[in-house]
Each structure stands twice: as C-alpha cells, then as structure tokens.
C-alpha cells in the first residue's frame, strides 16, 4: 500500500514578534512559541544521543531567546538559527508535528510556553 499522506508544512511564517507559525497540509495552523522551540531542539548537544534524555538546562537558555533565521533542509526539515547562537538542530516535519501535539491545543490559544521535557 502507498503510504498515507504524511504531515508537511505548507507555509512557515512569523507569529507576533518572535514566534513561528506553521500552516500544515491538513489545514491546521500551529503557533510555536520561540522559547518552546529552542527548548525542543533535537540536536545532540541538547539531547543525549544514546539515552534520548534532554541535557539542555532550561536555566541556561535566555528568556527572550528566539529564532533569527529559518532555512529549509531538503524537503523533510528546517534548521533554526537562534538568538543565543545555537543553530545545529534539524527540526523534521515529524518532530514539529509531534511538538504540535504536545502544544495540544489550537495554537492561537497558546500563550505560555510549556516545557516539553
């Protein structure tokens, strides 16, 4: 059987001053708060490669951290360059879709960033 349509963003824009808004191919629009994204970085500096445990300390991340630039990675992910100089994370569509579920509500209603891990 051909695989079902997988989640993929259609449009990635800015929401407010520093948050990221993604419109998905299923029609949903999700706003990812800036610091939430930084805390959710999946790179091996932020997550232990072997155990999957998050090693990034919340206290080490500036409160006003936000993405400065977003670049596409192939057709499966984006990379984010953050204001704290961090830029090694590759956010795949699967990861961003998982994060949307974690945000757990229509994005417009999300005002306070939750800590994902």
């Amino acid at each position, binding site marked *: *059987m*051909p*695989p079902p349509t*997988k989640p*993929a*963003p*259609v*449009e*990635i*824009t*800015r929401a407010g001053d520093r948050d*990221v808004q993604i419109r998905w*191919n299923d029609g949903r629009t999700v706003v990812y708060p800036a610091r939430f994204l930084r805390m959710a970085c999946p790179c091996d500096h932020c997550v232990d490669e072997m155990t999957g445990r998050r090693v990034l300390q919340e206290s080490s991340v500036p409160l006003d951290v936000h*993405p400065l*630039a*977003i*670049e*596409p*990675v*192939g*057709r*499966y992910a*984006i990379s984010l360059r953050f204001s704290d100089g961090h830029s090694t994370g590759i956010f795949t*569509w699967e990861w961003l879709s998982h994060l949307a579920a974690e945000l757990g509500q229509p994005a417009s209603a999300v005002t306070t960033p939750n800590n994902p891990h």
Partner: protein
Amino acid sequence: MPTQEQVLTALRKVMDPDLHRDIVTLGFVRDLKIDQGKVSFSVVLTTPACPVKDRLKEESEQAVRAIPGVDQVTVDMRSDVRPAPPPPGLNLVPGVRNIVPVGSGKGGVGKSTVSANLAVALAKSGARVGLMDADVYGPSIPTILGITELPTPGTKGIRPVVAHGVKVISSGFFMKPGQAVIWRGPMLGKLIDQFLSDVEWGELDYLVIDLPPGTGDVQLTLCQRVPLTGAVIVSTPQDVALTVAQKALDMFRQLRCPILGIIENMSYFICPHCGERENIFDTGGAERAAAEWGVPLLGRIPLATGIRIASDSGRPIILDEPDSSSARAFLEISQNLAAQISIQNMKETAEPALKISF
C-alpha cells in the same frame, strides 16, 4: 474549413495513459495552424523518452483526420522536460531540471551498470543527461563508460567529461587507480557539495546519481542539499537483497524523497547454449516487493554475459548491442523512468510548495 475549436475538441479525446489527462488539458498541443483542409500542430511531450510517443502521434492524427473538411494532418512530436518544482531556499544546481539518485540497500546489485545504461538510454532519446558517480568507495562509472580522459577546468568550475552523449563526473577521476578512499562522513558531504555546485553541469533534463550502497552520509547530504525528483532503487530478486533494499526505501521516505520505482537486476539468466531460462537469484521478488511497498516496478534486467562484457570494455550494451534483450530492457526501463518523473512532477505541481518567510 475546420475551426480551431473543432481540432482542439477532437484532440481532447487523446489521453496520455501515464498522466491520465488529455493532451489539450496537459498543454501538449502547440503551434496549431489551419490552412483550408491542411491542419498542422506540435505535440510537446514531457520527455523525449516517452514510451507512448508513437501511439499519441497516431491517435492525434486519427482524431483530427476524422473532422469533416480535413484532408491533411501534420503532427510534429517534440519534447520539453518539465522541471521539478523549485524548493524554497538556495538552488545549488539551477540548470538541472530533475535529479534522480539511483540507490540500493546491498552492494553488488549492479547499480552502476544500471545507472550508466539508463543515462545513456535517456541521452539517446534526445534528452540532456548528466551522470554523477557518487560511489566514492568504488567508483566504476569511468570503467563502464570507457572514459580515459579527465575533466578539465572550466570558466566557473570543473567541466565534466562527455561520454556517449552523457556529461560525467566521478570521484574516480580524482584518485589514483588502486588507491582506497578512507574518509569520515564530513569529507563525503564536502565531495557531494562540490560535485553539485562546482561542476559545470549546464542545462540538464536529467541528472542521474549513482549512489554508494546503503543509507549513509552521501545519501543524507544529497537529500539535505538539493531537491530530488525521486529515487530509483535497484535490487536483485532474492529476499536477502530486497530486505536490505527496503531499508534504502525507508530512508528516502523518511527524508521525504519520492520513490520513482524499483528495478530488478539479474532477474533471470538465459543460457546462451540451450536458450533455457534459469532464475538464479529467484525471480519476481521485486515485483512482489513493489506491490507491497506501493511503488512502481520499472522493469527487469536479465543476468547476461553481454552486459558484463560491455561494462568491462567501456561500451554500454545499449549502444553496442541495441537489439539484445538486455539493451531492450534498459531502453524500456529508461522510458518507464522518464514517465514516472513526468508523473511525479505533475503531482508536485498540483501540491502547494512550501513557503518560508521569516
């Protein structure tokens, strides 16, 4: 005198069997001229390697000839390979319309022979074709295509070697014979970057990339750097090869690179002495796998001494023995591949492309 509307209505009955739409809706019909009873027009296909070119020509002619008042029909069959939709961000190879990596799970399944013959077959059909030998550990394209010269410096980068109508670049050009490549991942990534951006590919309809086996750094770098039209997977028919091929397929799916199809190589052996067919590595395995994975089977290539001899002597069998069953298999597969590329690009154009504005 027939009207333009009558002619177009008649041509709307001619369907492209791969794209499932009529040739007028697809925008294939151009330069329509009507002079009394004489009608002439062009049909511009999406690839010169179109497997149904003759059939479309005949059907178009017949459809127009059936209009009252028409006594002469001239159809000019042409092609213009449509590019894959542009991705957001930087395009490293702006002149290349379609990038098609040829991968496998296992090594030794004949990936390089298949890539080389497909590239030559596409070029023979009239397409502009490049072939990148990205198998850094065992570059064999120079041998298969009989290339003895080296690439030369161009105005902006490296000028590829042209062999049998195909622009070729290979890591083999930059190593001494017998020298092993012992590199860590980042070096492999750099080489792929160079092969993409520092080679003067120019305008190409198809860039075929012969990958190393497996699911490693070269594949990953490629999927991250450039928009791939879709990947081709080569496998032999036995279960052990297909199980590993599925991993390659899974990698491309995870990286959101479409799969254009599977090619079954060493599919069967026809004894040159008695003519009996022997399924050395089993047969039909790729067909079952293709059905299970939901991807097209592009075709089967026999295990034939002629292919081995042609590859070793640097004259692709498709040119050297065009009437052999092996050459015909390659030709048919190249046409099926070109058709799948057209279908894929049509599908993508229908979907919204990702926009990033931040």
